[in-house]
């Protein structure tokens, strides 16, 4: 997988690409936790280029969200393909992570 980082004001946008599975979720999780531990409080994860999320990938989101909640921050997802949205819906993660059709929508909601 690949991770591209950009900023809009104090919002960090992580754009992920490829597969988020047991082989790659650690890299994503470490990146996420490093940002949170570095004091970032507003995060947007752009999943437009993610083709697959396994349960290990979901766990990385959850670990990040919990750390962020403890720090008083907010996270939002955007641009989920239909199969990725299905994974979030089936696992009940949709009730934990607000998801928006576009980066703009997510940015204005974190």
């Amino acid at each position, binding site marked *: 997988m690949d991770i591209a980082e950009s900023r809009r004001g104090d919002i960090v946008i992580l754009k992920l690409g490829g597969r988020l599975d047991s082989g790659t979720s650690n890299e994503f999780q470490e990146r996420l936790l490093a940002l949170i531990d570095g004091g970032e409080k507003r995060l947007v994860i752009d999943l437009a280029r993610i083709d697959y999320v396994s349960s290990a990938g979901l766990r990385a989101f959850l*670990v990040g969200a919990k750390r962020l909640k403890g720090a008083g921050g907010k996270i939002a997802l955007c641009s989920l393909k239909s199969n990725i949205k299905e994974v979030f819906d089936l696992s009940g993660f949709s009730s*934990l992570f607000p998801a928006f059709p576009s980066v703009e929508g997510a940015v204005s909601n974190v």
Partner: protein
Amino acid sequence: MERQTPGPPAAVSALQEHPLTVLLVDDQAMIGEAVRRMLLGERDIRFHYCADPTRAIGMANEVSPTVILQDLVMPEVDGLTLVKFFRANPATRDTPMIVLSSKEEAKVKAEAFGLGANDYLVKLPDPIELIARIRYHSRGYINLLQRNEAYRALVESQKHLAAELAEAAEYVRSLLPPPLAGEVRTDWRFVPSTSLGGDSFGYHWLDPDHFAMYLLDVSGHGVGAALLSISAMNMLRSQTLPDTSFYEPGEVLSALNRTFPMENQNNMYFTIWYGVYDRVKRRIVYASGGHPPALLVTDAASGPARVRQLRTPGAIIGGMPDVAYPSAACDLEDSHKLYLYSDGVYEIAGPDGAMWTFDEYVALVSGPSPPGVSDIDRVVGRVREVRGSDTYEDDFSIVQIVF
């Protein structure tokens, strides 16, 4: 029953030490003495001298040299032939060999290298150069020995781990309920993955009219995931969650969510589908904690079977405190088959790497079975076909309940 479990191999934790050991093979005692003196100040180098080339292989097998110095011109045995013998001898097959000759001869050198020598020195070399070469070749060889040892230890420890996982999988299997025959019939398959996932499931009558059924899937793999799965399943089996009505799926899931926060479970969480069948009202109440929907297949008298996906929006168990787990209900009319399963059943990639879609899986489950083949065998057989393999990355559990 007392059982002996072999401990992990000791070599996993510590690499074996190999002292720098030189074996010099030369018929001239004077050379033996000269080299011995050159190495006298090198406390960490052990030196062995063999004046009789016919005994050289035997001595090498005894002292395990990390480098062999060998004269090329000796009586009774041709030096190049001895190089060949050293290479054919298993214990010295990879031991670095420095051949010693009285003169620089490109042709002899090439021949020696061709037979497996690693280096070539003209007698008598400068002590500084000799020691440097001895250290250089020994270091490389010791690294090779240690790498081989580490590899063997790794293979051993993987075997050990695989045996433990197989034992844990057998334990999980022993806790699964036998298939039922009667008013409510059940059939199931449990196929643990090579690394053992955290699937488990169960069903039982709460009273003569209410039948509880559930399947859960712990995130992650290994014995830890299996243990969490078993703990949760045992609470459902023995109905020991505090202040919980086991007739109310939403209550059961909320209680599990309070009991198993992921922080207390080594960051593992699980998904579960829990339902209760009321045989008098012909109705199923159910709730899902992040689990894929159970599939209720109704055989129609004609045309394709009807499939209902019994899903609720509850989140994974142990992920977040104080989230709500709504229940839902579904009325049964005629003959129905309910399928509980873990995502290991449909989260599979075919040989071309393309993932199966959930809809493809639903279509498979609701499809007709040929005469003489059980529905479960048909589904499992097709999943195997799609994967093109009998090993699974994730546990694979599917339960069929016929009402």
